[in-house]
């Protein structure tokens, strides 16, 4: 189902991931979060931005296990835990945050 951000329409795939990664604007994350009844905080944005940087460098959306490890390395050990990340993204940190970040569904994610 396409989503509408500031009057502009964005195509998505059948699972709600953005069809074209290059279309992404920060507003996409806001609209998607609102549909999930989630208010995005700076902590959420840290993860979303981290995922976009990770994709930029490695051309891949990491599986949750890998995300947890990488976040711990980059943003500090206290944030590199499942508990912290699931607290932010209850539908699955990698799955949900990658969607907000305009990335494809993570590789190794079922």
């Amino acid at each position, binding site marked *: 189902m396409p989503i509408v951000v500031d009057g502009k329409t964005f195509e998505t795939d059948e699972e709600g991931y953005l069809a074209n990664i290059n279309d992404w604007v920060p507003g996409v994350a806001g609209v998607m979060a609102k549909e999930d009844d989630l208010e995005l905080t700076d902590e959420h944005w840290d993860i979303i931005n981290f995922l976009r940087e990770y994709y930029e460098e490695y*051309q891949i959306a*990491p*599986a949750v*296990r*890998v995300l947890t*490890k990488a976040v711990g390395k980059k943003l500090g050990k206290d944030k590199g835990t499942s508990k912290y990340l699931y607290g932010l993204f209850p539908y699955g940190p990698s799955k949900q945050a990658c969607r907000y970040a305009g990335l494809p569904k993570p590789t*190794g994610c079922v």
Partner: protein
Amino acid sequence: MSEVVKKFMYLNRRAPYGTIYAWESLEVVLIGAAFDQEVNLMFVDDGVFQLVKGQDTAGIGMKNFSPTYRTLGDYEVKNIFVDADSLAARGLTQDDLVAIAYEDMDTEEEIENIVEVVDAARVTELMDESDVVFSF
């Protein structure tokens, strides 16, 4: 989790582009990494080109997935081997290949590069030790 840990080898023998084999192999490895098996990656023949650094695919209109190999360490894939003869036959050395880092989160031990160039005898030995060999 399964009690039986099997030794899987992913044998990569083809150039990265032109066919889908290299990308498919990498995807299977990354997806399979979620299961606790012992995984070896082996690059032989034209497969060694998959690890060559500085790839630019703009001219052929394909996604450049070579940076993705560098995430293998993050996916807990620790054993990556390259056949020395295949490298030499193509005028390549280890310096032409990407480096893949691995950090053990428990011990915080960091290995800068887990890519290991091995001779033919060792290739044979590693294949023999494997329970399953997936050839791509």
